[in-house]
Each structure stands twice: as structure tokens, then as C-alpha cells.
């Protein structure tokens, strides 16, 4: 199966909270991606079947949401916010620093698959800028030095 049985059962339970089958589709896509690493063809086919939609209808939804991706990211996806509040407090320099440290650019992944890098829009950390999200974890009030420590900690974790 495209996703684990446990996740599928969780989806079945949540789908009962809505009057239509497709309603829980967006969270299902995100949680499937968390498990599989990306929205694979198998995930699309499975969720289409589950919601009585065509695969094309599911893909139309996938393409709208910026967190959903059609190929794997690194184990740690470093998302640098460069929107206004972060920009005013050094986000462009932080992005540049990450590019140099990791040797990759926007939406690229390191050859060992450990890190990927992405410039993202506002993540809701405006009063604690500049901020970065690594997968779902927030890192705030960053400087290039603090960023190095963040990256080092993830590297150690492996």
C-alpha cells in the first residue's frame, strides 16, 4: 500500500467527521507526504480511490498547496522565511549563508540527501525574525552563527 495501515486507519476515522468524502483530502495529502517523503503516484492513486475522485482531481488539489511536493526533499528541509519582517532583520543574508554552508540553492537537496533548502513565504514568526523552519520545527531570532549551530545539531542527529 502507498501509506501505512495505521495512517490509513487514522484517515478513515477523520473522514467520518465531514459530510463529504473529499473534505479531509488536504490533510491526508500532507500527512501522507510526511510519511512517504513526497506525493508519489501511489499516494495520488490511493487517495483518489479513497475519496471517489479521479487522480487528476487529486493532482489539481496537490498543485495548489505550496507545502506539497512531487519529489523527495532532504531528510531535513531547511525553509528560510524571506518575507518582509524576516527580510528587515537579515533573512536575505541568512538565505545566502545557508546556500554557502549547504552548497545548494532554492529547492535543491545535498548529494547525501541530508538537507534540502527552500526560500519560503511568511511562517508566522514575524516578532521573532529572522526565522527558519526545519521540517516542522521553528528556529527563531537567528544569526548566521546561530544558524550554523542549528544545522550542526541536525547533522549530528543524522
Amino acid at each position, binding site marked *: 500500500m502507498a501509506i501505512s495501515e495505521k495512517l490509513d486507519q487514522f484517515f478513515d476515522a477523520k473522514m467520518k467527521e465531514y459530510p463529504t468524502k473529499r473534505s479531509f483530502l488536504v490533510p491526508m495529502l500532507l500527512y501522507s507526504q510526511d510519511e512517504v517523503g513526497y506525493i508519489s503516484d501511489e499516494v495520488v492513486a490511493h487517495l483518489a480511490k479513497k475519496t471517489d475522485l479521479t487522480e487528476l482531481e487529486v493532482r489539481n488539489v496537490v498543485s495548489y498547496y*505550496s507545502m506539497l511536493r512531487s519529489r523527495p526533499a532532504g531528510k531535513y528541509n531547511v525553509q528560510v522565511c524571506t518575507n518582509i*519582517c524576516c527580510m*528587515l*532583520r537579515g533573512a536575505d543574508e541568512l538565505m545566502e549563508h545557508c546556500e554557502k554552508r549547504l552548497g545548494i*540553492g532554492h529547492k535543491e537537496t545535498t548529494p547525501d540527501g541530508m538537507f534540502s533548502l527552500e526560500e519560503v*513565504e511568511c511562517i508566522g514568526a514575524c*516578532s521573532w525574525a529572522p526565522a527558519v*523552519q526545519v521540517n516542522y520545527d521553528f528556529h527563531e531570532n537567528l544569526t548566521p552563527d546561530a544558524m550554523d549551530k542549528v544545522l550542526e545539531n541536525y547533522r549530528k542527529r543524522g
Partner: protein
Amino acid sequence: MANLTSHPDEIRVVSQRFGKGATDLSTYLQLDGYKAVQKALAMQPDDIINEVKTSNLRGRGGAGFPTGMKWSFVPKQSDKPKYILVNGDESEPGTCKDRLILEHDPHSVIEGVIIAGLAVGAKIGYVYIRGEYRYLVDIMRQAIADAYAKGFLGKNIFGSGKDFDVYWHTGAGAYEVGEESALMESLEGKRGIPRIRPPFPAVVGLWGGPTVINNVESIAAVPHIILMGGQKFANYGPPKNGGTRLFCLSGHVNKPGVYELPLGYPLKTLIYDVGGGIPNGRKLKAVVPGGSSTFLLNAEEAESINMDFDSFAKRGEFLGSGGVVILDDQTCMVKFALRVMKFYQHESCGWCIPCREGTDWLKKTLTRFHNGGGLRKDIDNIRYLAQNMLGRTFCPLGDAAAIPTMSIVDKWRSEFEAHLEGKPCPFDPEGKISELPVLSH
């Protein structure tokens, strides 16, 4: 996770449980939790609505629409189920307050949803939280589960004979879904394309049923209003601008943070006293008063305006979402306009042509302009393009892109002129600008 800040001028209503461990249900109960809903269960629906009307609570998402009035638009009789939908898709640049409410006081949101449901006759509520806020989705899941376990949700809540269900939902990255009709589309499992109105959601909303859509902060204020009485809440702010609100101070200030202050609070005091002034001995140039979609204020305007809906409405402008962004005198306004436009271009769903084409053209023009390739006629063209997006789209994203752009051209035209004829950006003469990363997605 996010740092909490404080200031003596704060009046803590919505934020009164921050940092007190109220995610834990027994702690929440010790801090007057779930008392308001029990009070509301003994009230008539119209009395609940009237209490909220009296409070002068206005939508904290940014539109500032009176919450009590919104509730009163829901028809009493309906063949289809009615719904309460909480908008926790917080993504207006500059805004980071709903995050704190969901992190520190999730039960106040659940309680607010039940009260709203009692007021309009709904039995189901959904709490939609943006996809990036996964840790808050987890907190909300736990809070909802705890409330069910205690009998505060589900069948016969608090032994009242009434049923009420609250469910959590999450997005997957989309600014536009913060707009109420796009939010409903997303909750129905679709692309977040806005719906045309009328009909308004209060009449035809989720799955065709009457739906009340409220921002997290608005709904979290409701239990406090029921407990303290609408009049007391109203009295915190000036007439027609009831209560307090969470101001998210960011940008070039010494003490950025989220502060709960009464509506009508002077922006000057917010910047120089609460925020501790501008760092590095610089001066104030501009303020984004309430998220990136609002008209920018210059220093003189910022130092004389009060932070309530009507003080801005008088100028034909908007108080917005509570996201107050401070810009110092070394900020390039052309670069700022470009970054704002890049955002809206990235987030435009493409449904309405003026927004899809307008944001793309404006991004291209501003990029060229900032790189020194601007022509004098571009300055008026930028303003003309922005003006022509206004009011011509299904949802306000087109307006949101146009408004800051128009105000920047109007108030800082000289900075556009300073970039003409291939001159380097006066604030970045080294010319690193052309290397600004461009979002490809």
C-alpha cells in the same frame, strides 16, 4: 516556543493564560476555563449574540467586521446543518498572534466555538490551522480529545441535553486560504479558489449550510466577553472598537513581540515605548500598520494615529491584522515594494485575471526597476496597474497587492526616482540586489 514579552500598558484578556500551562485541561479549569460556556448554556441564543454585539468585538483577522452582527446574519431556520469555522490559517505577513493563542490557550478556542454554536444554532465546529503550524495542530488535537473525555464536547455537553462536536483540520501551505471563501473550499478538500459573494457564508457556507467564520483571536475573546460582560470588554477600547487586541510588533524595533493592548492605543507609544524605539540610532521611515496588505504610514502619520479600526477608516485605510512592521530610515522602499509584490505574485491563485496578471507584471516591473532598469514612466505605470486591480477580484488578494504598492509610490516617489537611469540602489550601493533569490514555485 516563541518568546513571550510583556509591558505595563498591557491589558491581558485573550493573553491572560499565556505561559500558565493552560494547554493542560485541569490548569485551564483552575483559570476559569469552561465557565463561560456553562453560563452561555443557560442563556438564550439572542442574548449571547447581544452580549457580543455590546462588546463591540470586531473581526481580529483584519477585516474588522462586527462579530455579533456577523452571527446575527445566520438564519434561525435552516434545512442544512449550520457550522462554525475558526480561521487559524494565519499567514498575513507581519502576523503571529493566533499562533500564541493556539500554543498557550487552545481550550479558549474550543470554548469560543461552542458558544458561537449555541448563539447561531450550530452543532459542529471546525478549527482550521495552517499546515506549517503542525505543533499547534498536535496541541489542538490533544485539547479536543481532552474536552471529549470530560464530556465538554460530544453528546449532552455539561449535562445540558445539547450536543456539540469540534474537529481540527489543517492546510498545506496557501496564503489565500486565509480568505473566508477560499478557506471553505480548502476545508471541502479543494483548491482554495475564492467564491463570489453574495451569497455570504452566513447564509450559504460550508457544504451549502449557513456558516460563521471567525478568526482565532475573535473566537478566543468570546468566552471572556461572556464571563466579564460585553460592556466591560467594550470599555477597554474607544467607541465602536471594543476591547484589546494582540499587536505583533516586528521589524526595526528594539523589543519586537506580541503585546495585548487596548484598541485606540497610540502607535507612537507602541513603537517608542512598548517597542523600545528604533535600533542603531536610526530614525523611523515607515510603518506597516496591520499586515502587508495595509496602506503604509510615513513617520509623521505613524506618530499621530491611534490603533483602532475607525481612526484608519476615517483616512480610507485599514487597521488590518495586528501585524505592525517598523521600517527604519535605511530601508529601501522600492526593494520593500518588490518583496511585498513577490509574495502576492507567489500566492495569487490565478482565478481572477487582474490579480494573476497584475501581480506578475508588477513583480517584473519592480524587479527591473530596483535593478536600475526603470524608466520614469514606470513609476506611474506601477501605480496605474495597482489601482486597476483594486476591487476587480473575487477575493481581496488583488486589493492586498495593490494597496501597499499604491501607498509606497504615493509616499516615497523620490526613492523610485533615485533608482532611475541605471543608478545603484541608494541603500545598497554595492548592488547585491540583482542576486535577490527569485521564488520559482
